[in-house]
């Protein structure tokens, strides 16, 4: 029986010559998935641990589908039978699972979405149950990247991953995934557009993740709006954890532009509070909410986040350093309750930095003692502070000793942007411009994909149908009003079409 099973499992060979055509491959892969999922679990469980074990024979890279199914059944039974020893990190099943997640064939896994998702869920559950949730992060991440190198199609795995990272405080581990822009959400692609088309089969080399990860592919549980927002908010917090404020700022803006029917929700409020603070850190002000945000919703959250706006106002008054401190002290309870106390502290620190960096717009050289008397700290403290700022790249300036003893140390700013420690050569600038061009082109491709997905959605097809009908209807009516073949019911539908 075990041998029989093995023959079936080896029945699908992606490198076989007759599967070189993509359509053939697509058909065979889907049939194979259907076939092996009908085999009862008992067959897979036979011969576990033996030398001729299916899992030892199968190659996770070449026979990914078969391997995934077998592995899934094995783990499920191990959990059912409370056979935990095998699952413990470092032991056989765990190792196999990790190996698989790091080396599966991405094209095959496009067809076995639910297996892929379940294996990821298992590894997370096991790691949590063993009390070492951090161990699951790396395998999950590599599984995500292997399946979809852009990781730009949102799945429930994204959310689980970021939750795990936040719980274990492994912010840096989350960054590679967060850096990728979420360019698609799993959408409902009608089967007619999905199957049997030469260039849009899931295994096609050109397929983007938005095409093979859809609502029916099983890679993701049903995704709700709250999941997406939660991902963005947690993602922003992870960026804050690694002090990448600009990225956090951008991620938070994604939350603010969420379509809303005149109302906001709590996550949006959370996002707004953080956004106000982070905007101060990034832009020194907070007043340009993205234009596409829903005005009514923004009004609501602003009303609920007055304390933060007051803080931001105090921050922008660089000449009035004590005011911010007073504001911070007045709202301590609020910051702590909202979990933003750390960010608020950062704001206070940043105000000093902004104050100094604003001096560069007014002065070309200023004795440190002058700044010290304005800020109200000692010259030595300030000198160390300034040295740190220059070292960390906040200031394009240098500290120099002056001949005149009464002046002391002097902070001298570089007026020409091509000089000093922060200077960029023309080559670097050019390089940056090229990189940006690259990013923009990628984005243009993603926009095109989104456009395509919209154009095959049911609603759009119906809309086009109606438009066509209307156009021909108008033309027909003008030519021959008696020949209009439509009855009243369909004219009603036309009226609806106008409302759209």
């Amino acid at each position: 029986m075990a041998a029989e099973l093995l023959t079936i499992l080896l029945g699908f060979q992606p490198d076989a010559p007759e599967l070189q055509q993509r359509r053939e491959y697509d058909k065979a892969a889907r049939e194979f998935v259907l076939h092996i999922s009908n085999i009862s679990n008992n067959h897979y469980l036979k011969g576990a641990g033996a030398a001729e074990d299916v899992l030892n024979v199968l190659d996770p890279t070449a026979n990914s589908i078969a391997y995934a199914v077998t592995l899934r059944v094995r783990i499920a039974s191990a959990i059912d039978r409370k056979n935990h020893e095998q699952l413990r990190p470092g032991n056989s099943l765990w190792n196999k699972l990790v190996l698989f997640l790091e080396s599966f064939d991405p094209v095959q896994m496009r067809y076995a979405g639910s297996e892929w998702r379940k294996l990821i869920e298992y590894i997370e559950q096991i790691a949590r149950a063993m009390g070492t949730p951090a161990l699951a992060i790396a395998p999950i991440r590599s599984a995500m990247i292997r399946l979809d190198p852009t990781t730009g199609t949102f799945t429930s795995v994204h959310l689980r991953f970021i939750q795990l990272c936040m719980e274990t405080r492994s912010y840096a581990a989350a960054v590679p995934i967060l850096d990728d822009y979420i360019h698609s959400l799993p959408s409902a692609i009608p089967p007619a557009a999905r199957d049997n088309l030469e260039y849009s089969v899931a295994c096609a080399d050109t397929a983007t993740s938005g095409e093979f990860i859809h609502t029916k592919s099983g890679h993701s549980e049903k995704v709700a709006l709250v999941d997406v927002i939660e991902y963005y908010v947690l993602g922003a917090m992870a960026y804050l954890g690694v002090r990448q404020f600009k990225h956090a700022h951008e991620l938070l803006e994604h939350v603010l532009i969420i379509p809303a029917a005149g109302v906001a929700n709590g996550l949006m409020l959370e996002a707004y509070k953080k956004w106000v603070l982070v905007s101060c850190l990034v832009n020194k002000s907070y007043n340009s909410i993205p234009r596409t945000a829903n005005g009514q919703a923004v009004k609501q959250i602003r009303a609920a986040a007055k304390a933060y706006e007051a803080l931001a106002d105090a921050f922008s008054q660089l000449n009035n350093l004590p005011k911010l401190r007073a504001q911070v002290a007045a709202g301590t309870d609020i910051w702590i309750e909202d979990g933003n106390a750390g960010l608020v502290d950062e704001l206070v620190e940043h105000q000093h930095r902004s104050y100094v960096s604003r001096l560069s717009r007014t002065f070309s050289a200023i004795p440190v003692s002058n700044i010290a008397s304005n800020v109200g700290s000692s010259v030595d403290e300030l000198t160390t502070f300034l040295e740190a700022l220059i070292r960390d790249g906040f200031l394009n300036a240098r500290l120099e000793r002056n001949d005149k003893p009464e002046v002391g140390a002097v902070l001298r700013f570089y007026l020409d942007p091509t000089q000093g420690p922060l200077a960029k050569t023309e080559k670097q600038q050019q390089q940056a411009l090229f990189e940006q061009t690259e990013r923009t082109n990628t984005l243009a491709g993603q926009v095109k994909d989104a456009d395509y997905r919209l154009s095959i959605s049911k609603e759009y097809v119906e809309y086009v149908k109606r438009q066509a009908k209307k156009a021909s209807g108008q033309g027909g009516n003008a030519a021959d009003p008696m020949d209009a073949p439509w009855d009243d019911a369909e004219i009603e539908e036309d009226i609806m079409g106008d409302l759209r």
Partner: protein
Amino acid sequence: MASDAADSPFFQKQRQEDAIVVTDPPKFDLEPYISNYEGYTRLDRLHHIGSHSTYLAADAYRAAIAEARQGQNVQLLLTLQEEFAQIAPGDPAANIDTAWAEEKTRKVRAELDKLEHELKSYKNNLIKESIRMGNEDLGHFFCACGDWSAAHKAYMRMREHCTSNKHLADMTLRLVYTTIAQKMWLGVQSHLAKVDGAQRKGDEKTKREPIVSACTGLAHLGNGDFRDAAMAFIYTSPAFLTVEPAAGITWQKEVLTGNDIAVYGGLCALASMDRTELQVQVLGNNDFRNFLELEPHIRRAINLFCNSKYSACLEVLEGYRNDYLLDVYLSNHVASIYGRIRTKSIVQYFIPFSCVTLDEMATKFQLTGEFATIEDELETMINNGTLDARIDLVDRLLISPPTNPRYTVHADALSMAERYDHTLRLRLTRLNMLAAGFEIKQDKGGFRESTSSLSESIGASFRGMGQRMGFN
């Protein structure tokens, strides 16, 4: 005498309220100055001078009280006497003449009754012209009493009974006059626009235009729009000086004189125009030259500014600061006009240099008391963006920053690209969400529920885990 007045309770109160108090003697003499004016503005100006200059207070108040006694404005007279009593308690003019006031009030009351009665009878007769005149008389009467809003109402009521364009234009000019007296500058502007719109060609037009243009300038000045004010003043025709009374008002005496136009126009132009504009539009302007001749020092100041002698120009203006502080319309704007001229001078002065020592700046531009040192002033100017320069506090230099357009263009392009990129991403996210049918809806739970959803979902995944795995 002057020092007595300065310490009087009245000026102490003025100082407490942050009102302008001028202690030094101005350059003009009260007697010839005030004789240029007639009617309401004469009183108003005397009152203004009296309440702001400690030096001229007694003279101004005495003149004003004598003037007010002739008129019908009892309330103003009482105010004047009360204020004067705080400055010079012993002065006979300060004694409040209650009997006289009562008598006058009664007379005024009788006059009002009479006029109203007349108006009523006109109304019963339904003769338009009579009703118009009745209202006009009432308006004149309220003007004389100083009840400007009532006067305004009375003149407004004339509108529907005006039968000719001249009547309409006269009425509107009257309205302009009352709004100026109330210093409601926006109202002045709207009424002036009506005069302008109603104007006919020919004789009427030439007669009214200078008045309209001068009043427009005054309204802009009142609103603090110095540039618009300058444009209106410098294009006022010199015919203003000789124009016949319109609507029963001698504008060049009862509102503002040619000297005022020269001063207001010159200062506003200095505050708002650059050197070439000043040269072409002000000095080269034949109309305005006639006015400038009346106030040669303004002409000199503009000339000096055009010839880049900024410090001399400021010196001239500084000499007249007290005079202008005592001008009823200019007083509130002097500080801001002078400030602008000064900053403009500094900016213009610095343009040809790449580097100037701070001491040189300090000698060229004497401090006005607003700032402690020249550094502070320059710092403020740089911070609010009027001066593009950097201060070197160590070598005490003002440095013009080097520019690198190529670098700037590159940096700008990059930041713009990033911004667009981000905006596009936001739009695409939104589009995807809309395509997926995601939207925050009203009835699906309030604030409270969704705020806790985050922590709940994490908590739930913790709790569920152990049970499912059977480890507990």
